[in-house]
């Protein structure tokens, strides 16, 4: 069959052969252009899926160990002393007032898990002197690890006083 086609092709005029070959090459180039893009896309997709599946497999394989580590971490804390979001708010307000400062409390964030949750709260202290700030800070540190400081920014005017501070504090809540 191929030899028949070959004989048929070779019997064509030169311009017809040229045209046939040109069309065939053009067809290949055009199709290959789209095909290579599709192949590339598919390759990247399947690669990403493979990597994601491998990651998932690893996480699933480590599930027991992670749960055990979480249990162990939670065991370090006294569940009764851990603070939920509301208690954190109240506790920080109480500690600030005990230090003689009036806090601006806002922007709460919560990360919730099966066994425990982490709550965070932004605390803004305006026009506060160094000693009051230090007292508030020491009050917070005394409640560690149930309350801890994640971020601390202190601003001082050119005159040096009064200061303003922005803190993000967080607490852990262990499910009882």
């Amino acid at each position, binding site marked *: *069959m191929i030899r028949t086609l070959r004989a048929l092709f070779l019997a064509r005029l030169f311009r017809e052969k040229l045209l046939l070959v040109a069309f065939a090459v053009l067809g290949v180039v055009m199709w290959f252009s789209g095909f290579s893009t599709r*192949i590339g896309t598919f390759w990247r997709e399947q690669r990403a899926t493979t990597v994601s599946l491998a990651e998932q497999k690893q*996480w699933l394989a480590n599930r027991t160990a992670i749960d055990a580590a979480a249990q162990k*971490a939670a065991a370090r804390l006294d569940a009764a002393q851990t603070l939920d979001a509301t208690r954190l708010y109240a506790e920080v307000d109480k500690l600030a007032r005990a230090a003689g400062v009036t806090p601006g409390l806002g922007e709460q964030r919560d*990360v919730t898990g099966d066994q425990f949750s*982490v709550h965070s709260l932004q605390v803004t202290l305006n026009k506060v002197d160094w000693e009051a700030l230090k007292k508030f800070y020491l009050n917070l540190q005394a409640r560690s690890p149930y309350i801890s400081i*994640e971020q*601390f920014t202190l601003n001082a005017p050119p005159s040096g006083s009064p200061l303003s501070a922005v803190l993000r504090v967080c607490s852990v809540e262990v499910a009882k």
Partner: protein
Amino acid sequence: MSDSPLHFLRAGPPPPKVCLLPDALFFTRAISVAADTPAADVATQVELALESLAPFPIAQLYYGYYHPSGATAALIFAAYRRRVTAEQTDLWNEADLVLPTFAALLGAPLAPGTTLILTHPESLTAVHAAAEGPVQIFTTALPAATDEASANEAALAAAKAELLRMVGGSTTVLDLATLPIAQAAASDGDFTFVAGELNSRLPATIAANLDVRDKAALVARRRGLARDVMFWRVAVGCVVALLLMGLGEISLSAGRATWQKVRLVQLAAQRPTVEKIMNAQALATRIEDLSTKRLLPMEMISVVAAKIPGLIRFSRVVTDAKNLERVTIDARTDNSGEITLFKTALEALPEVAHAEISSQRNAPGSPTTTFTLTTTFKVGAVKSAVTTAP
């Protein structure tokens, strides 16, 4: 025309276009050739022999030769160009092979002593396989035909008898009923002829030497054929590439619809569970950090502030639990010389790993220099001022 394309394809390639010339146009000679002579040298020897044998210059001859590989003789045949009409040569452009009729049978397996008789309308040709040396060709003219069939047959029989007598030594005589007819060959470039029950196969290299056309024109023709074959190969390559890409597209679609889809479904199904585990891990790490790693901004400020030279003032202090040992301080001074002193003093502290000054600049027309001091403490070097809750 009623045949289906499939039937056309199954029928195989058409037979090659061959021009068989009357044998009477040609004279034949045999020349000796050394057995190991290269093909190019054989062609040169043939041309030299023709120049000495022929009464005309070689440029005025249509010639060819038969020399199977390793043979010790070559059979040369040539015709004076003017004996071939323009009508005949016009047909040659389309032909794949142009040769004398007897040459078409030179590829037939003939036992020594065998004589083939070819009957042309106006002549008889005998091809005799001698016991030694190349085949011998004998041609004789036939008497003009008359209206009486029996007289014509008798004249033909007499001419054949005379021809065989001229040949001499024939042990087997094959009187071919038909002239050779070209058949589709088994492989490209080869030629196969059939005359009655006799088959003659001429390989491509031998057939090329048998072609009597102008040699320069043949070279140009072969170049054209080579180019066309290259075109054919490119076209076949393109078709194969298109088929492969078609196959690839099908595989791609099948791969997406089955294999990849199953994996994506699995990925989506596992995602909530994995996210839960990741969350648990993140929370466990965070609790661990809360219990064991504490951000101590005031303590770090105290350590740094203890080394402040006279005119440097802090304007902003930033610390983050993501990097517990680092404190970034924006400061200003009216004496820029103090900045280096400050840095050196900090680096001399046992708690400090390193101190770095950046963004140092002066406001135009102002003696005040602002800068950023990033101090990194050694791990665990800064101690908390308070004891923690149990």
